């Protein structure tokens, strides 16, 4: 039995750092949204780079990275946005060394993945911090100590092609499918550019821009809300429901971000410009399958794969 590879001492947490895995599904009927990594694609890639299962927990850093000291030799990888440390590759950090991350150069979030994963006790089946629900701890503070799990068997490092990594880059139109109340709105939404407001967090991203006009002022009976739903309150300023979203809501929803683009939301920062592109359900499915295909291809080794 391998020895646990030590612990992580949080010297500086950065702007907002939390422990995240792929979330806590199964409690929506209690009003608990799944939470999980804001950019799950980057977390999965980071985990694969250090030989972890994709579901392992890592540290999610937001806008400004933290400083972390390791008590044992560990293999780490950073995935997501550039926080001034080598990205998309695994490397070893020796016991007693400090990994210091800076401010985000682009995007908003970066994952510090450690071989063995962050081994905080799971709450309701997940290690994900749900800040709004107060589940799985809180934002990391200086002085926090995080245990590292026992790594599984070593596996060959995956190779991630530029095509997949490029898909994590922010700056392109976010693709959506029509929302359940899309017919309640006047045209114009897809021609408009919005700015991410400073009220953007893991719960939701408020947008500022031209008023999204309701065709009629009729209320909506509170109904279930999905991750990535774009709801429009009477003031016409859309809100994108994010990983710690409310499970139900009473504002009409004009559109919903597709599964293949949800990770892009995690890389949006205040004052970023956002546009939306409407796609069909079939197209959304194709895009997701294509994304998963590239992840699997990378995971299983591109050298072995033969494709034209």
């Amino acid at each position, binding site marked *: 039995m391998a020895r646990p590879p030590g612990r992580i001492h949080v010297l500086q947490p950065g702007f907002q750092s939390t422990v995240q895995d792929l979330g806590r599904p199964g409690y929506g009927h209690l*009003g608990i949204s799944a939470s999980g990594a804001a950019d799950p694609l980057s977390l999965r890639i980071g985990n694969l780079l250090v030989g972890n299962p994709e579901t392992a927990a890592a540290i999610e850093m937001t806008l400004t990275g933290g400083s972390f000291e390791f008590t044992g030799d560990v293999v780490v990888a950073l995935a997501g946005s550039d926080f001034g440390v080598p990205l998309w590759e695994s490397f070893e950090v020796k016991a007693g060394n400090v990994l210091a991350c800076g401010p985000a150069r682009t995007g908003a979030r970066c994952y510090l993945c450690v071989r063995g994963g962050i081994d905080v006790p799971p709450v309701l089946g997940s290690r994900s911090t749900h800040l709004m629900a107060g589940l799985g701890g809180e934002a990391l503070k200086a002085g926090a100590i995080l245990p590292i799990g026992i790594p599984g068997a070593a596996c060959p490092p995956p190779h991630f092609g530029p095509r997949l990594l490029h898909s994590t880059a922010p700056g392109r139109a976010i693709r959506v499918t029509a929302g359940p109340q899309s017919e309640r709105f006047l045209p114009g939404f897809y021609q408009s550019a919005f700015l991410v407001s400073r009220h953007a967090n893991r719960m939701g991203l408020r947008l500022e821009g031209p008023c999204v006009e309701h065709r009629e002022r009729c209320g909506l009976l509170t*109904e279930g809300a*999905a991750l990535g739903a774009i709801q429009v309150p009477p003031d016409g300023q859309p809100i994108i429901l994010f990983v710690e979203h409310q499970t*139900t809501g009473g504002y009409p929803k004009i559109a919903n971000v597709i599964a293949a683009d949800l990770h892009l939301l995690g890389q949006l920062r205040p004052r970023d410009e956002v546009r939306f592109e409407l796609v069909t359900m079939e197209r959304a499915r194709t895009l997701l399958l294509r994304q998963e295909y590239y992840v699997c291809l990378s995971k299983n080794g591109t050298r072995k794969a033969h494709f034209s």
Partner: protein
Amino acid sequence: MRYRAASDRSLLVSFGPETPDEISSKNRLLVENLTRKLVEAKPCGILNVHPAYASVLVVFDPLTLDHQGVQHLCESTGDAPATEPRTVVIPVHYGGERGPDLADVARHARMTSEEVVRLHCGADYVVHFLGFSPGFPYLGGMPESIATPRLSSPRVRVPAGSVAIGGGQTGVYPSDAPGGWRIIGWTPMKLFDPEADPPALLTMGSHVRFEAA
């Protein structure tokens, strides 16, 4: 029943129209039945079930299921086993700093704040579902005369324990959350505790009464 794709990974199952005056006990029982059936059976690929007044949003893994498959699961017959409903009394401090919108509700209802409190306390409520935020109970049974429209722009933070009215609905915020409902009071009662099992004090079908503290 009406099925609509709400997103590429969720299906909205509606039992009635989506207008705010359609809060019925018939729909409540249909919602509760489908929710409990899915939550207890845990079919492969179903990630979350979000019940509401007259609809259930079923969130699924799009790599395992599609909208059609989820619809088949919802249509499969069988009822959830019956449960014994409980009654919970919630003490409320109405008005003041922790109930800043009580006067607005009274003005909208063309009555005094005291009358609003009397009507809010006088009713028998039933939990239609838990939603919005962890443990937040959506209650049916509020007198129509104190219904007040939501704020046009939601507050960024509503403190835990706030008792509020949104349209013809009333509820209690179990944790700090943004929200657009009118806050009429505050309760010290803990409605959600992640350490408890179950973490939510109330459940679908629970009966609730408010008591002025």
